């Protein structure tokens, strides 16, 4: 019964979405306030209905209602409650339901927090949002109904893929989707602006917080996925340039570019049509990401051909959304008025350079990800595009970007003085060169990889440049300390956001460089009592026992780790075999130190006695995760800037009036 209510709620939601997609749009073009106002209540109804459907499916999972096909295929009574709930989105149908629940949530947020939006823009944006909802609801109802019944119901379900029974991956999809769907807001605002034919600083100011929120979620989602790969796959790697990873990375690159170009629109009333284009591209890439993962086309073109219904539907949706918006863009963009002029060397110019490189980066990842598909479809033979390709093409693009990132924020708007900026950055340059030299000597010259010193120098240059910019803003050491502190207190939060996020990236680069360059590993058969030393850490295998988990059996090894004769830690990696479905997973045991992770994996028993063990020292990996968190923190800081806060413009206006009076 409850499942049918959920199904019915989805059908009602479709009806509401159709109304919301049409009436407010017509109302906006006719200036009919009542029709435009319909978008608000419609988005509330939308959230309620989709929420009911989501709750119904969650209920079916929590109560293990195996008469629902989706639950029977993806759940099991033995699963811990946490994974019963997260199992809701651990499958195709449920994850789409999550997608659209988040979409409804964003729509509701616009209605609730968008009181100061111009009614026309708000009505149009919500209508565009509803069009996306219509597409996805049709997709769910026609090809991927999560509420399909199964008669007779089985005694128990098939269980959830054990790899998903993990906190990192359980919460990875919601964050990723919050990011993907968040870009739909920027998209809807862009389309609404194209329809209105007006893009101005106010528009950019409304779009930025949504884009920023989406960016924060996506950053967190990608970091969670990467962290999960690091501890769960058991190889100590954290990025594989896998098509599915690329699918989430492309919207991130486009979204980052969008955030930066929106700054130019807001501050300088320039780069408008480019910003609109980026908003379309960022969401287009989010849709593409969904399509790539959901259609099975990535595994092989042939998988796509054997079960084409879903793939063809999403492809159609993608073509309609992207094609339609590009057409609208082609028609309307030329009429957008161009605003402030600026010289190539200027803050705007630097932000434009960021955009050029970010967009090229996204294009490169797109090309590399889709090339094998094209080659196969065009009979050029089967081609693999793997990490060596991406590393050799993508990374060189990011080097000039990071180089420019240190200087950009120091350039003044309109026309900058590059020579002056570079001389102000001489401290950073000296620090970077010193670190490069120190790194080179430390790794024993060419005994380590040649690029390690470069990566470290780049990070220090970025960090140095960011600190110089911050110090100049508060006139540190130039003015009395009290004045500097006062200036620091008055720095706008968006400026803090930039400083923090850029520093986070520097930390990330340090961690990525070190862990790629100097990872130490040792693979061997280890007997009980035997000691293996990696990076000065002595791993003694003291015990191996079988343990019984909630829904798995595990072989758990116990390593006593000492460093310089002192006890350091006890590491207990596991090799699990889940009961349903019967599949193995590795659970690495990790102890983090400031210098790196001590990482142990246990494998199979060897007939001659002993176990296969893999022991690693992964240098500075915690810096990577810290870098990601710092970037997220910077995003949050910027998001909390008072000009993004709800109603802030009204208060600001009141304050100005009060001051004038």
């Amino acid at each position: 019964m409850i499942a049918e209510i959920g199904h019915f709620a989805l059908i009602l939601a479709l009806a509401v979405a159709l109304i919301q997609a049409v009436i407010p749009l017509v109302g906006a073009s006719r200036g009919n306030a009542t029709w435009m106002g319909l978008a608000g209540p419609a988005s509330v109804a939308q959230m309620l209905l989709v929420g009911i459907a989501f709750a119904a499916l969650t209920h079916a999972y929590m109560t293990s209602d195996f008469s629902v096909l989706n639950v029977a295929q993806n759940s099991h009574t033995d699963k811990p409650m946490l994974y019963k709930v997260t199992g809701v989105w651990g499958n195709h149908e449920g994850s789409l339901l999550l997608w659209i629940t988040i979409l409804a949530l964003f729509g509701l947020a616009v209605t609730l927090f968008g009181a100061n939006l111009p009614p026309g823009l708000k009505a149009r944006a919500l209508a565009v949002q509803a069009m996306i909802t219509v597409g996805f609801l049709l997709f769910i109802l026609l090809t991927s109904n999560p509420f399909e019944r199964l008669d007779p119901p089985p005694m128990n379900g098939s269980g959830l893929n054990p790899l998903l029974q993990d906190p990192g991956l359980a919460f990875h999809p919601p964050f990723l989707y919050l990011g993907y769907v968040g870009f739909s807001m920027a998209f809807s605002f862009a389309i609404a602006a194209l329809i209105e034919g007006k893009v101005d600083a106010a528009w950019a100011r409304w779009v930025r917080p949504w884009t920023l929120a989406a960016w924060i979620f996506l950053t967190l989602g990608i970091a969670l996925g990467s962290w999960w790969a690091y501890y769960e796959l058991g190889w100590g790697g954290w990025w594989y340039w896998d098509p599915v990873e690329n699918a989430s990375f492309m919207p991130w690159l486009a979204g980052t570019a969008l955030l930066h170009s929106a700054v130019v629109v807001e501050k300088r009333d320039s780069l408008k049509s480019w910003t609109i284009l980026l908003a379309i591209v960022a969401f287009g890439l989010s849709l593409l990401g969904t399509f790539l993962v959901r259609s099975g086309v990535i595994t092989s073109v042939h998988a796509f051909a054997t079960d084409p219904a879903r793939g063809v539907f999403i492809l159609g949706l993608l073509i309609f959304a992207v094609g339609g918006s590009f057409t609208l863009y082609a028609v309307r963009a030329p009429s957008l008025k161009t605003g402030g002029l600026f010289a190539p060397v200027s803050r705007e110019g630097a932000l434009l350079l960021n955009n050029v490189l970010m967009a090229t980066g996204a294009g490169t990842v797109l090309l590399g990800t889709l090339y094998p598909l094209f080659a196969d479809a065009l009979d050029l033979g089967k081609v693999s595009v793997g990490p060596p390709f991406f590393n050799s093409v993508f990374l060189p693009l990011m080097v000039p970007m990071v180089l420019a990132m240190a200087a950009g924020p120091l350039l003044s708007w309109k026309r900058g003085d590059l020579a002056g900026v570079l001389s102000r950055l001489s401290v950073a340059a000296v620090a970077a060169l010193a670190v490069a030299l120190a790194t080179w000597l430390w790794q024993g010259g060419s005994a380590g990889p040649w690029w390690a010193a470069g990566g470290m120098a780049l990070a220090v240059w970025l960090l140095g440049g960011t600190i110089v910019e911050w110090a100049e803003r508060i006139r540190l050491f130039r003015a009395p300390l009290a004045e500097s502190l006062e200036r620091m207190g008055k720095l706008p939060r968006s400026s803090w956001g930039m400083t923090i996020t850029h520093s986070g990236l520097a930390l990330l680069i340090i961690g990525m460089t070190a862990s790629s360059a100097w990872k130490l590993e040792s693979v061997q058969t280890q007997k009980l009592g035997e000691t293996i030393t990696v990076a000065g850490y002595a791993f003694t295998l003291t015990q191996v026992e079988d343990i019984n988990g909630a829904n798995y059996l595990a072989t758990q090894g116990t390593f006593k780790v000492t460093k310089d004769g002192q006890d350091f830690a006890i590491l207990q990696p596991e090799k699990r075999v889940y009961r349903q479905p019967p599949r193995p997973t590795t659970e690495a045991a990790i102890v983090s130190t400031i210098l790196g992770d001590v990482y142990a994996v246990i494998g199979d028993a060897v007939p001659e006695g002993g176990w296969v063990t893999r022991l690693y020292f992964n240098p500075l990996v915690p810096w990577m995760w810290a870098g990601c968190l710092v970037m997220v923190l910077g995003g949050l800081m910027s998001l909390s800037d008072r000009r993004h806060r709800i109603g802030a413009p009204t208060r600001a206006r009141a304050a100005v009036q009060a001051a004038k009076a």
Partner: protein
Amino acid sequence: MIRLAVLLSVLWLAAPALAADPSEMLKDPALEKRAHTLGKELRCLVCQSESIEDSNADLAKDLRIIVREQIGKGASDEQVKKFVVDRYGDYVLLNPPFKGATLVLWLGPFGLLAVSLVAAWAFFRRRAKGQAPAGSAPLSDAEKRRLEALLKDGK
């Protein structure tokens, strides 16, 4: 979730053993290091996009052994690659070779960069030719009414 499809496809085929089995490894650490570096560039053919050094699949194990046998026989890196490519095709190379079929792949990124730089340059040229910045459009009637309403509310 996002990785699920990939992992599923990998794991269905996966043997429960850990990949780099010590028994496969070459005795000479220098040769083993060479084999490992080389193996990182060879694709596990039945996997999503993992190298043979990072995969649990049986086929990856076989390939690891082949690579080590060849290196043990004194073959150079290029000879080992050729040996594997002759049997499995270019598909086995994670770093696609530069040739006709991959021309667009390798030159594409540079093309993209060139196009966007030219676009940026054209943007500045057009601006420099003295397009005066257009003033902001006058308010429409509806906007004027709304402005008045807002100002009234503010008081």
